[in-house]
């Protein structure tokens, strides 16, 4: 099975049992949304942190496939190819 690496910032690690980097099976459709769905089933707190009740990525959360923000790709439908990493980061916000 092809695995992809999902990396998160330290503030999200508590929602992933302390992990900042996870190896996740690449779903059949290979999309970011499916990867998050699978992770969210296992880690509900992580799911709530990253996406709201509608399933939308929160406004100040950025998700990258390789170097590209999924907002400039196809959003949650953006595909992840074998060998690419998924990086989740908080954007610059607040005051």
């Amino acid at each position: 099975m092809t695995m992809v690496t999902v990396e998160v910032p330290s503030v999200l690690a508590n929602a992933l049992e302390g992990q900042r980097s996870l190896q996740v099976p690449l779903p059949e459709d290979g999309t970011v949304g499916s990867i998050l769905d699978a992770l969210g089933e296992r880690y509900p707190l992580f799911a709530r942190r990253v996406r709201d009740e509608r399933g939308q990525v929160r406004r100040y959360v950025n998700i990258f496939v390789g170097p590209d923000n999924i907002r400039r790709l196809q959003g949650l439908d953006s595909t992840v190819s074998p060998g690419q990493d998924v990086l989740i980061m908080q954007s610059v916000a607040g005051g």
Partner: protein
Amino acid sequence: MDNDQRTIMAIGTKKGLWLAESTDREAWTLNGPHFLNLEVPSVAIDTREGRTRILAGVNDWHWGPTVVYSDDAGATWSEPEQGAIKFPADTDTALARIWHLRPDTAERPGVVWAGCEPISVFRSTDSGESFELNRGLWGHPHRSQWGAGFGGAAVHSIVPNAADENTIHAAMSTGGVYRTTDGGTSWEPRNKGIRVGFDPDPYPEFGQCVHHITADAQDPNRLYAQNHGGVYRTDDSGDEWISIAEGLPADFGFVFLSHPRTGGTVWTIPLQGEGERIPVGGRLSVYRSTDAGNSWSEQHDGLPDADYNVVLRDAAAVDEHPGSVGVYFGTRGGEVFASNDEGAHFATVATRLPDVLSVRAAQFAGAAQ
């Protein structure tokens, strides 16, 4: 309850939560910040069920709003993994902010109310670990016509009726006061007599920008409202409101507190006009009435003469001390004041905190932190 029992005060700010403890309500020990850099617009202290539970509505700018609670005075915090407040999938709505947390009466242990943005009421029956959306209000035909106050579109006051569990009043910005008498299945606007200054019709059925409501201690059908311009009382559960602004230096403000035991005793903190939004003339004062708003007296002892900061609707509270009730409030300038004698004298508890958004205080039955 001993009069010297400790008191705990929860202070929610724009950038975290502080907790203050005192044995005499004069000298306070402050600890925090908890949830540093996160907004805490709502706090509650639930002393029912043999423990003291501090509930906080925490808003993480990046990772969303949530409800957390502590049963050990802030030493540890719990957050339900699935999230306490969530909009059901069929609403296609996401929770934006938890504006108000309100434990119900002692006769209804476990019941906690939440007023949220977007405009909604949620009810918990397990002491705040999970909440259910009130479908009656959410499905109200007026919903599309409710507007947003300057701070957002939210239910900010929920007042359960002490004598009748099926009657609840809720106030929202900007929709006004709504009442249910069937436990939340249906809701009716109850704004007759409350004037609006921003609509061609000065007395619409709904659409008022009510800032806060509270109930009288002895008569659950008597409620008080601080409106966006206007201070009101109803003696018939909201069927009709009358002005009680006479004697106050201004009819604008956000705060309305009622005594937990003495009927007719209430406090408000007037602000200058709707555009200025500062203590009148820069003189920060609390006004108390002991005759249900028919007359008012200024309480200024211990408060600064020059203060230009707003006191927000949930940033004020009373405790239920068995002797002399405490009065507490915080300003957007980050100062927190406490009175242990029903507002006759105030002492400074904290200075230079971030903007204070929410304050609650209670006699403390839990373990010390």
